[in-house]
């Protein structure tokens, strides 16, 4: 028992130090992550950037073009009228038309959108209850639905249509009474059965807020990967298979969606952003759900951030890729026209925070570091990193030094014995995180 | 017959300070042994080793034939232990505590316990924490006796007790051990109480056993002689022969296992004139102080 207890204490102490010490080190030594903000010039200036530059202890913003030339703020803003329209209207420098397209404040506002997908949005705890908006309520604004949809359907469960007492594939819950609405549930279950939706649902996407210009509906991918769109009109469900009504049904049928993100914009152009099982992003565009593959070269939904910004003239796709073994963090920007044809590309590697001297020193000092909360998931989980290969010799040397010190201390205290083997192993493997608890632990006797 | 307690070459240090140096003694069945010694002589260390709260640097301690550090629960049930200060659970009342302990000992005899409790002036629901020191000592004693142990270790039974309770304690122990089937080890600083109680006497001095003898032989054999103090008188101590010469203001004393002629010869050998040498009665306490010194 006592040896098990001591090893438990040793492992706990080492684990806690491997969690807190690297965290403390990071807090003490972390610099500011300087990711440039990318724009695409409306008047043909190409890519433009706002960068954070360190100048003698101070940080300041500088504006550059793709060639790296610094621009004055006013010049910079005049190259991006669709972004800085407020300032330009104030100074009276706003053009009335750009590239043959008339520019009015109303059109500007309507066409502006910003869609962002972060890894922790894709893997986050959710309550699987969906509000189904009424698309045709005869009112100017959307109203919060009075009930919630629950999807019970599972593989192999053949739900017969019609009202009954058994659990339905689709249930509607009434918050007022905290009960199931039998008729509405039966209605929707029938609709799903008629549409030949194969349960279970493999992906779902909607925008559950009333603060949007209209309701797109809920996209649902069934067990065979087929995408359906569910809408409610005058209380009645409308479930259609997107492939049946799309411009390119073959593409839709071949799609295996993993994540579906819906973000309604006033022009109704963006239907959904879909990330397939391979991590490839697609955009469903326009009335007939044209499937546009987003032309990024490297995107890992579990680690990278993707953003799609649009205005009157262009679409700008920006992917910030996180550092990976063998690849530094990078920024990729793709400028597209309104039909999603590629106009221009930009790629730059970002400074790797892990390459800074302080960060590398931390990797040597703490061969193992772990944490629970990261920006790649909304769930707490065990994430760890170990010393990279190129720093292994340095880490090994440090650990050897600490091991020697450990042995000396044990010799001096006359406590060097075979029972100390776990302690020494902890120091050899984890360095400081093993040595400290080993020295502070009580003896087993 | 197997001794109930056997200490074999116990040695222990606290850091570098010696506490026990090659201590060996034993307690035979049916005997009452007094473990005596000044403060810091090593009694508490020995008791802690006996109860396996301390692991000696070297040496072994056997209780009822088993190593004190690996006592089987069955054997533990045969040993009673009074903790110094009569420590017990203060949140119990006398009925609850009897109910608790009775579950652990197969030979539990509640009558013994309740007989002792009837002598106390307490209400049945009174918690032990609210009792006086003397009442608590009786509760602790009653619980041990009800256990019917073969061996009892009393670690300083007299601490905090007034003369009345001390006397009660001694009488109860005396009656209890009268059948000769119980073995008892006692430590105490109140030596006069032990005068007619103990069968054996082990005296510690600075971590070593100074004397290990039957109490009767000690009382009968160890004599005190006084004589007038003269300039020739010098204090002397011979631990090997248990001989002590004390120089007093007016009268000096010679202590030792000596009859009168031997005493005279001893003084003559040391060149100390003692024409008025006379024997004086010595209590166990006198003997103890003589052997272990006043300072």
């Amino acid at each position, binding site marked *: 028992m006592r040896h098990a207890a001591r090893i438990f204490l040793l492992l706990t102490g080492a684990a806690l130090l491997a969690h807190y010490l690297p965290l403390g080190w990071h807090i003490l030594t972390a610099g500011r992550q300087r990711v440039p903000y990318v724009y695409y010039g409306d008047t043909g200036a190409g890519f433009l950037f706002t960068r954070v530059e360190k100048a003698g202890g101070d940080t300041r913003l500088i504006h550059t073009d793709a060639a790296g030339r610094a621009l004055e703020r006013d010049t910079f803003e005049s190259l991006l009228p669709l972004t800085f329209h407020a300032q330009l209207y104030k100074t009276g420098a706003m053009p009335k038309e750009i590239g043959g397209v008339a520019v009015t404040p109303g059109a500007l506002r309507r066409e502006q959108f910003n869609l962002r997908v972060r890894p922790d949005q894709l893997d986050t705890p959710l309550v699987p209850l969906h509000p189904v908006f009424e698309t045709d309520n005869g009112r100017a604004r959307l109203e919060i639905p009075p009930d919630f949809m629950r999807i019970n359907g599972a593989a192999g469960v053949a739900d017969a249509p019609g009202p009954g007492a058994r659990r339905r594939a689709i249930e509607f819950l009434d918050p007022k009474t905290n009960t199931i609405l039998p008729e509405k549930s039966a209605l929707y279950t029938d609709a799903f059965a008629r549409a030949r939706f194969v349960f279970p649902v493999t992906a779902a996407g909607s925008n559950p807020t009333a603060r949007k210009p209209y309701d797109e509906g809920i996209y649902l991918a069934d067990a065979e990967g087929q995408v359906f769109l569910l809408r409610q009109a005058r209380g009645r469900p409308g479930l259609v298979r997107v492939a049946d009504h799309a411009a390119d049904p073959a593409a839709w049928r071949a799609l295996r969606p993993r994540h579906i993100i819906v973000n309604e914009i006033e022009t109704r152009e963006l239907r959904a952003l879909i990330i397939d099982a391979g991590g490839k992003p697609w955009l469903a565009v326009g009335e007939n759900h044209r499937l546009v593959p987003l032309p990024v070269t490297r995107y890992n939904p579990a680690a990278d951030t993707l953003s799609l910004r649009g205005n009157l003239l262009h679409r700008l796709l920006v992917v910030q890729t996180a550092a990976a073994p063998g690849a530094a963090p990078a920024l990729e920007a793709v400028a597209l026209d309104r039909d999603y044809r590629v106009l221009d590309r930009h790629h730059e590697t970002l400074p790797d925070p892990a390459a800074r001297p302080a960060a590398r020193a931390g990797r040597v000092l703490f061969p193992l570091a772990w944490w629970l909360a990261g920006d790649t998931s909304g769930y707490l989980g065990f994430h760890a990193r170990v010393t990279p290969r190129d720093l292994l010799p340095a880490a090994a040397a440090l650990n050897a030094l600490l091991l020697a010190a450990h042995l000396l201390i044990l010799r001096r205290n006359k406590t060097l014995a075979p029972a100390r083997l776990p302690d020494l192993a902890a120091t050899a493997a984890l360095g400081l995180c093993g040595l400290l608890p080993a020295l502070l632990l009580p003896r087993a006797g | 017959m197997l001794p109930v307690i056997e200490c074999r070459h116990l040695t222990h240090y606290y850091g570098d300070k010696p506490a026990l140096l090659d201590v060996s003694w034993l307690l035979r069945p049916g005997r009452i042994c007094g473990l005596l010694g000044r403060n810091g002589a090593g009694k508490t260390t020995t008791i802690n080793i006996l*109860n396996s709260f301390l692991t000696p640097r070297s040496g072994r301690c056997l209780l009822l034939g088993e190593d004190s550090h690996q006592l089987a629960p069955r054997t533990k049930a045969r040993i009673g232990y009074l903790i110094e200060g009569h420590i017990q659970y203060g949140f119990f009342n006398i009925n609850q505590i009897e109910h608790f302990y009775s579950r652990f000992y197969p030979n539990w005899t509640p009558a013994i316990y309740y007989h002792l409790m009837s002598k106390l002036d307490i209400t049945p629901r009174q918690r032990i924490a609210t009792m006086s020191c003397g009442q608590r000592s009786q509760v602790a004693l009653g619980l041990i006796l009800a256990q019917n142990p073969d061996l009892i270790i009393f670690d300083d039974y007299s601490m905090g007790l007034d003369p009345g309770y001390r006397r009660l304690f001694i009488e109860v122990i005396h009656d209890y051990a009268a059948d000769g089937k119980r073995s008892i080890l006692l430590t105490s600083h109140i030596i006069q109480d032990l005068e007619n109680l103990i069968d054996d006497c082990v005296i510690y001095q600075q971590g070593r056993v100074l004397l290990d003898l039957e109490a009767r032989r000690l009382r009968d054999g160890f004599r005190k002689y006084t004589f007038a103090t003269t300039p020739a008188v010098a204090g002397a101590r011979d631990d090997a022969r248990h001989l002590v010469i004390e120089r007093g203001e007016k009268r000096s004393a010679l202590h030792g296992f000596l009859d009168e002629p031997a005493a005279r010869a001893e003084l003559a050998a040391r060149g100390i004139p003692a024409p008025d040498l006379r024997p004086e009665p010595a209590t166990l306490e006198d003997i103890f102080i003589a052997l272990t010194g006043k300072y």
Partner: protein
Amino acid sequence: MSRALFYKEWIKLRLWWVLMLAAGVAFALVLFFKLRYVANANEAVTVWNAWIFKGWLFFRPFQYVPLVFGVALGLLQFLPEVQARRVRLVLHLPLGETRAIALHLAAGLLLLALALLPAALVFSLGGALWFPREWQGNLFHVLTPWLLAGAGAYLAAAAVLLETNWRHRVFYLLLAAGALRLFLLETFYDTCARILPALALWVLALVLVPLFSSHRFRKGLVR
């Protein structure tokens, strides 16, 4: 003999346990009545939206109660035992020492669970009045790490008290604080779902530490 030890701990702790139980249930009821007020003062769908999209859970103020109860119970149970080194009484009883202390820990954990379970029941039943079964899953995933933190705090308190060396006491306190903090991170309902088994296993293994402390006490290993 196990029953006798449970009896002893019960007599020692019963008054405090009743107070804890009452305090826990009272707090839970206060939160329940606040929920009732919120549910009545607002549209039901608004309340559900606050739950589903903002992670609002009416029992969140209860977060630190299990931890506090765990520490309190550990103190109330073991402080009397270590004062005047009274634990010698237990170690002298005719049963294995590890078993004796383990039974004390079992009694303490049982009392802790019984003191907190009624509050959990109030939350569950109260929540069931206004929320669907998905909410119960959220309750489980959010409440369980707090309960585990309470058990962990109890075992850490026992280990700290049974340990005789001050330096090691401080070490245990730091370990406990560092570890239990990870049980009480802000959660958005099921956030802890993936690490819950690991947390539970760690608390289970933590039982070894107070046993270790009492073993060291027995051997007189003060250094």
